[in-house]
């Protein structure tokens, strides 16, 4: 049983780390502000979720478990609000998203301000 917990915790941590890493790659690779925000939401949801789940499996009883669940809940409540606030502020200040055609060619400048 203990071995099983260790292994599943390791898998969760590994996959979570891979997702956070992919989120970072996405931030560097994607062409404009709005698409980068989608990459961040990977790190926010399943990346953080799986890392926290892996940590929960490391200490399956006691108060640490409840605290980790609380951290997960707050992350899931706060992150969409923050993303929405960022996106709304960007749009209202005149940063227009790059549309489909421009993104595929890759040569033209992003339309902004």
């Amino acid at each position, binding site marked *: 049983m203990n071995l099983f917990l260790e292994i599943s915790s390791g898998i969760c941590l590994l996959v979570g780390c891979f997702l956070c890493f992919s989120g970072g790659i996405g931030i560097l690779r*994607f*062409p404009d502000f*709005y698409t980068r925000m989608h*990459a961040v939401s990977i790190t926010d*949801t*399943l990346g953080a979720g799986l890392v926290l789940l892996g940590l929960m499996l490391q200490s399956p009883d006691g108060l640490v478990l409840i605290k980790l669940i609380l951290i997960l809940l707050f992350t899931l409540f706060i992150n*969409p609000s923050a993303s*929405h606030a960022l996106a*709304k502020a960007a749009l209202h200040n005149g940063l227009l998203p790059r549309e489909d055609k421009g993104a*595929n060619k890759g040569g033209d400048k992003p339309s902004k301000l």
Partner: protein
Amino acid sequence: MNDDKSTLEERAKYLPSHTISLSVTLSLFWWINSNYGNLLLLSLGASSILLVIYIAYRMNVIDHESQPIHLSIKIPGYLLWLTKEIVLANISVVKHIWLGNSSISPTLETIDASQHTDLGKVIYANSITLTPGTVTVDLVDDRMTIHALIKENIDTLRVGEMDRRVTELEK
């Protein structure tokens, strides 16, 4: 629409259930984060919770929106479904990150929301933002502006399964 809202607001005025739920939540939160057992600290905790409840009462924020206990029966099923959607969306967005810029087709579009209450709209908008690949940029009355990483995401939202589930939630 307005009828529903006013009855809920009136219920919030006459029933103390929202206050009870707020104090239970605060007490649990205080105890989980401190884990103290002696009498002095417990009483200090209790008095700080009472102070917070008093301030919340003065601010007039103890209502069905800050304490949505009328949703508590239906919300677990919705959260399970939302978790499944988030996992699927994560896989798709990670795939597009590694495939590169040529595989994405960013779109900004406006869709309709069919929820009647503000709470329902907020749940819907936050669910959209929480799902990777789609972000709610703006919410005006019943119209939501959505930015999507791939065009198909918008089409999936237009089919409206999430919309229907949130609307069912608020009934």
